[in-house]
């Protein structure tokens, strides 16, 4: 694991380490099984084509989990992911890079917790944002 990040290290306006995910079709089936979302649009290409899509698409909640992975990796063992939200703005397809990103928008202390707010999003290979959202995490303080 990477070194622990501290509240004092964070600057408003800075980006956190991005995470590139490239979901395979196998992974969509694995996610369907693990999460319980067995909607065919995510693994049955015939079904996806009949639904007017060009291919199967990633589960929105899998993409939300990728953002969760980015956030929990960044905050480390001593951080807590308290809250996050997403809006699905575009579809994503397997075997393409999906880049998860985050940017610090605010930091403050509340009830003795050192909190950081971020904008979070995913980008497709064309650079379009397919998810936008925000997150609140707590981080340890050095003091």
């Amino acid at each position: 694991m990477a070194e622990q990040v501290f509240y004092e290290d964070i600057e408003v306006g800075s980006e956190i380490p991005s995470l590139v995910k490239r979901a395979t079709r196998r992974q969509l089936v694995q996610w369907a099984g693990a999460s319980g979302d067995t909607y065919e649009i995510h693994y049955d290409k015939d079904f996806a084509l009949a639904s007017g899509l060009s291919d199967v698409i990633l589960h929105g909640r899998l993409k939300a989990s990728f953002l969760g992975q980015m956030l929990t990796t960044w905050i480390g063992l001593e951080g807590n992911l308290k809250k996050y939200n997403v809006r699905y703005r575009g579809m994503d397809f397997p075997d393409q890079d999906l880049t998860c990103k985050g940017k610090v928008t605010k930091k403050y202390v509340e009830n003795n917790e050192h909190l950081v707010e971020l904008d979070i999003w995913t980008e497709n290979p064309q650079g379009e944002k397919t998810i936008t959202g925000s997150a609140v995490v707590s981080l340890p303080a050095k003091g």
Partner: protein
Amino acid sequence: MTEKEVTLEDLRKQIGIEGPAITVEIEKGMIGRFVHAVDDPNPLWRDEEYAKKTKYGGIIAPPYLICAAMFLTPPTDPKAPAGYMGSPVPNMQFPQNVKGVLDGGGEWEMFKPLKVGDVITSRTKLANIYERRGKMGKMYFYVAETNIVNQRNEQVAKATGTLILYA
């Protein structure tokens, strides 16, 4: 057969309806399958020896496990027709002539870590139904709120999801 037109008023009568309680035990195997599917190598979800030395004292589920559909709807009947999606409340009434359904987004709030052995129970209610006009015609937004408690009846998480139906 001509159906009586379903109005927004009719649909909104469902607001407040609660679905059945869904109880799930947080097991190591379940966490393992979940983080394997996400492809998240964090040892806190995977490696007992590593996790033992942390403040958690053992493997925990990643907080984003709350995204999983299993907390929203019971497992789908394998014999259900293709395209069937579980609904968070029973016999949920949809608008007429639905052309498509999309997950609009979600919000997840985590209050306590999910530990191996926790037995968590989720309940979902329809919190709001509203209509918008978009490029693709009429859109109906179904907002579902899920409250999740553990075996000690402590709130561990809260989730809000928005389903968009195109008609």
